């Protein structure tokens, strides 16, 4: 069974985001595999270790440097990679179209991805891919069983869990609690360099989203310091909360 995993290269989650000339400044930023996708990579490798998957293929759409994310996944244990070269400004629609095209040519039995990207948080790409390819889609899974041409997925649901059975091929997107991604071993890192990675150009489509402006969240404002006796201070604090901060009491 061939398992294909979509990975996105994102900023390190501890990176300091800065704007330059109205855009997010990526100079000097450490880039990583989207942590949610990393869980999907681990899930695929575990399927291979269990003898269910025979090949794990990593596909990423992005600029040349997305190759590093593919190599990291190969170092974890995936078999080969595909870099779909695409402008880093592509939106979720363009990404999904590009990835779906590459996936279709590979004809995998299972497509895995993280349910959301740590950078834009839009949670769209796996669902769009499933729609484009006409495949079933299960979201935010925390475990998967494959048998008899079907995937039985456990997902988080309000107040409990949902168990969904779908025929494969299917697009399955992971929740972080599915597993704990492994650290690449030294030999894994060395072998990753020799594993094949194909490079293809993305289908050219127009973005559907036009970015008008990037803005950072407003910084925290300073608090107040009330230097009064407790009874006066408490009254002033209550007044400040009610009239300045406008805390609503229900």
């Amino acid at each position: 069974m061939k398992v294909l995993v979509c990975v996105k290269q994102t900023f390190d989650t501890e990176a300091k985001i800065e704007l330059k000339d109205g855009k997010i400044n990526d100079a000097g930023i450490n880039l990583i595999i989207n942590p949610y996708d990393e869980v999907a990579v681990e899930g695929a490798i575990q399927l291979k270790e269990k003898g269910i998957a025979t090949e794990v293929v990593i596909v990423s759409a992005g600029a040349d440097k997305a190759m590093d994310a593919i190599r990291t996944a190969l170092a974890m244990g995936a078999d080969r990679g595909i870099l779909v070269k695409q402008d880093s400004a592509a939106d979720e629609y363009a990404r999904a179209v590009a990835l779906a095209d590459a996936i279709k040519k590979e004809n995998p039995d299972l497509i895995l991805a993280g349910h959301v990207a740590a950078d834009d948080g839009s949670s769209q790409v796996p669902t769009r891919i499933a729609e484009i390819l006409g495949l079933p889609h299960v979201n935010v899974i925390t475990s998967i069983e494959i048998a008899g041409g079907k995937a039985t997925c456990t997902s988080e649901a309000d107040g409990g869990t949902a168990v969904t059975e779908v025929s494969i091929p299917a697009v399955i997107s992971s929740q972080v609690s599915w597993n704990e991604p492994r650290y690449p071993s030294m030999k894994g890192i060395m072998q990753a360099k020799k594993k094949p990675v194909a490079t293809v150009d993305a289908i050219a489509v127009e973005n559907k989203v036009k970015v008008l402006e990037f803005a950072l969240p407003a910084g925290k404002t300073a608090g107040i310091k009330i230097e009064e006796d407790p009874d006066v201070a408490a009254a002033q604090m209550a007044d400040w909360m009610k009239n300045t901060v406008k805390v609503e009491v229900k």
Partner: protein
Amino acid sequence: MSANFAYLNARDLKFILKEWLPTEEIFAYPQYADYYSKEDLDSVLDPCLKMAKELIEPSNEDGDSHPCQFANGKVITPPTFGPLFHKLQEEGWGTSNIDDSEDAMVLPKVLLSAVWEMFLAANPTFLPYIILTCGAAELIRDFATEEVKEMFLPKMMDGSWSGTMCLTEPSAGSDVGDILSKAYPTDNPRIFRIKGSKMFITGGDNDFTENIVHLYLARIEGAKPGTKGISLFVVPKYWVNEDGSLSDNDVQTTGIEHKLGMYGSVTASLSFGENNGCRGWLLGANSMENDGVGEGMAQMFQMMNGARMETGHSALACIANAYYNARDYCKDRIQGRLITDPKSGRVTIINHEDIKRTLLMGKAHIEAMRAMMYRTYFAFDIKHNDLDPEKRQKASNLIEVTTPLCKAYPSDEAWWLIGEAIQAYGGYGYCEEYPVAQIARDVKIYSIWEGTNFIQSMDLVGRKWMMGKGAVFAEFLQEMRDFCEAHKATVEAAAGGEAGLPDLSLGKEFAILERALESYSQLQMAIGGYMGQKKVGMLPLYARRILTATSQLYAGRCILDQAVLASRKAQELGPDHYDYNFYIGKIMSAKYYLRNVVPNVWAVADIIKDGDCSALDIPIGAFDY
């Protein structure tokens, strides 16, 4: 009890490996060429930084809060240590790197050292279990018969078994020539019956490996006294039978030490052959077939020299982690107002002059020591891999001279530098809820073990100064003079200081290095004069200060070399580039180190020329008051 691995990035390590040292020479050697290039190093360093933070750091707190225990003859280690040991060993970050077979997938020393620095900083008490296993396995690899290699190496390389070095005995520490351990011949000329006691054995016992392989110094019965007659043996805790099964080898743990720090690292006392049932494999020639002269000390020196490098490196990692923690605290802690603008609001303490000085002092020392150490690690790779015998010899000479510096200088400076990190925190630094307190407890041992820093100093002035009739050390000094000569013209032309930009010129720093070199020659002449007058006591009296001065001279050369490169890069990139501050930081570190630390070389030279003997002249009775 609040361990915190505070390396935010591996930028300085990447600078050393990708920009400063010509590591492309290393990666071109056949053993590495298929796997590495400079461009690939991030793919090793970045995941290891993450592993240090997420995987190894938690074990540091575990080690401190669950110290090693000894009960019913068994050692109990902190719960996380065993699983971590097996994980790192199995995944190729430890002993498998000593494999020198043709198809082995291993890291070069200079790169493995960068990985280990991060692991050491994350948990200095854990890594000795791996480092000592590497050292013991290297001795077996280099000196054992094929039979013994096959018996031990695969299990040591995959982490099933660990290793130790067994030198110290209750009656013989620094004076190792006085050991009482004995070896008696058996029917097999390679196997000896072993009897003796060892103490202060790091990793001497544990509860997570199937077997422990002790590299054990003993004297074959009838061999010469002193270090000359000592031989080296492989003495496993459990004897390895022909079918690979294990049986008792009469090795008992008699106790463990309760120490100032390093709670997770076992320091064991061991008894060998208490019931006459302990056996060991001899490495190298039988001393009784060689006029009673054994090869043990020379062989063990290989492991000791490796362990000495790792000791200095451990101290460096601890200093760096303490400094990085203090830096983060000083960037957050708000206290006081600027002396230059007292009417302004309160500021984070990193804005205060004395805190900035403290932090730059830490940064400068760390980067100077790191530069010094990695230049030696680089030489290890040249020595072991290069085909050119002249190049190998040159690398070997550098290793010989700098090993005592790399061991002693960081481990000497660590105590007060970490003290300064505590000082930067104020009262919180003295509290166990902040990580620097534990680092201070853990770091002190490094100036003592693997040969005290006095022994290192005597190695420098007694052996290394004289090596090759003085030619090796003369070459070491001449290289520094050549370095000054080669760069003087270019640095004087360097831009800087204009338009509010930092001063990037390094002319004054080169002048300081040249003056320090001249002072060092005077220092050597003064010592030579005392020796000519038969004032032998002057050598040990000044040895430690000479080692410090030698290290400051050499570390000054190394960090100044880095600053020359950083100055060029900063000028190429300009102030708007994201990496500009990194290079400016390198230059400021070099300026601080050269102008505030290296002048100690001529201070020491002046003191030695003055020749104060009060410490020799004082009657012992005067110490009663």
